[in-house]
């Protein structure tokens, strides 16, 4: 599904990713963890080309997205992204947030887009909010709308960049619940998170990044009970 080969990213002299190699199978749920500044967001953002890799190659499904000939827009259609700070469109209602891209990008009719949008809102438990503007919603509700908005494009992969980090503790649960539902549908997911309990519970694999290197790649049972590297041991000691 996703194959990452020798991925480098630098900003000027600063090497943020120093040669990441990994692959992710269809339906797999991968949690990316690591200290702040280790390059987790940058890694994720390279997967939908919000950041242009400096070196290396990335394949999603059959297409090499780092090839200049590949249409970036087409790639992004198939890769959904959820941000830490939601980034809902504040001047559009909840339902319009969900229908905008499917209509504009995929050419769905308004009726089709709205029907689909309402179904998704029901799935994330916000069917009654369709006419609201985002600023009226709580953080947890905003993030659930943001997840629904990404799903409205019917993506093959969903990327999450610390989806619960900006939320008050009591709202974290509702967002994680929606994500768990998504796991059960078989969606391929890459999740940057500090929620270790959640990662342990739902992830098939843990990727541990430190200083721009992929230091460990292991199933959660292995990673959490017997991390191989010193750096992962230190990190887990701090967060657990």
């Amino acid at each position, binding site marked *: 599904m996703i194959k990452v080969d020798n991925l480098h990213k630098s900003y000027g002299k600063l090497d943020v990713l120093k040669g990441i190699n990994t692959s992710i199978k269809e339906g797999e749920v991968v949690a990316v963890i690591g200290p702040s500044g280790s390059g987790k967001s940058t890694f994720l953002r390279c997967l*939908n080309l*919000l950041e242009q890799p400096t070196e290396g190659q990335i394949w999603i499904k059959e297409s090499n997205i780092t090839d200049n000939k590949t249409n970036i*827009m*087409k790639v*992004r*259609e198939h*890769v*959904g*992204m959820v*941000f830490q*700070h939601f*980034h*809902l*469109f*504040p*001047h*559009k209602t909840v339902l319009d947030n969900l229908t*905008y*891209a499917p209509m*504009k*990008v995929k050419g769905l009719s308004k009726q089709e887009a709205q029907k689909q949008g309402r179904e998704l809102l029901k799935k994330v438990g916000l069917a009654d909010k369709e006419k609201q*503007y*985002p*600023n009226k919603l709580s953080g947890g509700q905003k993030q659930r709308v943001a997840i629904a*908005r*990404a799903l409205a*494009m019917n993506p093959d992969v969903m990327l999450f960049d610390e989806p619960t980090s900006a939320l008050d503790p009591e709202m974290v649960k509702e967002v994680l619940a929606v994500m768990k539902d998504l796991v059960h549908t078989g969606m391929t997911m890459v999740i940057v998170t500090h929620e270790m309990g959640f990662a342990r519970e739902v992830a098939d694999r843990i990727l541990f990044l430190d200083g721009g290197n992929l230091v460990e790649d292991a199933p959660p049972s292995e990673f959490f009970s017997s991390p191989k590297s010193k750096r992962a041991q230190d990190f887990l000691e701090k967060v657990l």
Partner: protein
Amino acid sequence: MTLKVVAVAAVIGIILGIILSLMKISRIKPLNWIADFYTSIFRGTPLVLQLMLIYFGSPQLFGVQIEAFEAAFLSFGLNSAAYISEVIRGGINAVDKGQREAALALGVPYSSMMISIILPQAFKNILPALMNEFITLTKESAIVTTIGLADIMRRSYIVGGDTYKFFEPILFAGLIYYVMVMILTVIGKLIEGRMKRSD
């Protein structure tokens, strides 16, 4: 006449202002230079000079002598585009960077992102500044008398010249300008109120 000049100039100003502001934020350097140069020319010289240059210089510039009315809305439009482009550029930069990323991540192309995501939010923030620009334009339009256009000011001179009483006609002209500016202000507030729905 004043109203017509201001209205046409405002439309030119907004459309050209949007284009210039997009050129200014573009990654293509020559576009930045052209837009910045344009702005510095129109901000760095008096409006009355631009007006006269376009009117009296039209045979050299366009190959035909244009009407005073055309010269008026052209120079005001081109001039206010320079100011408006700065206002819009500020408005675009003030929109959260995440909005752009969210749109791009959904596969929305650049042009649609600008038109339906970024610019509406930018306009909401800059509406007061934009209204100010139009109010200034309305008042400054009085200089069209210099090229002989019969606007409010000129008519009040004419009436004054006929009756040898200048105080009342000019006071009356002032009142008309004042009413026009007040109407503009009210319209601005109404649009602002409509846009606040999403807050």
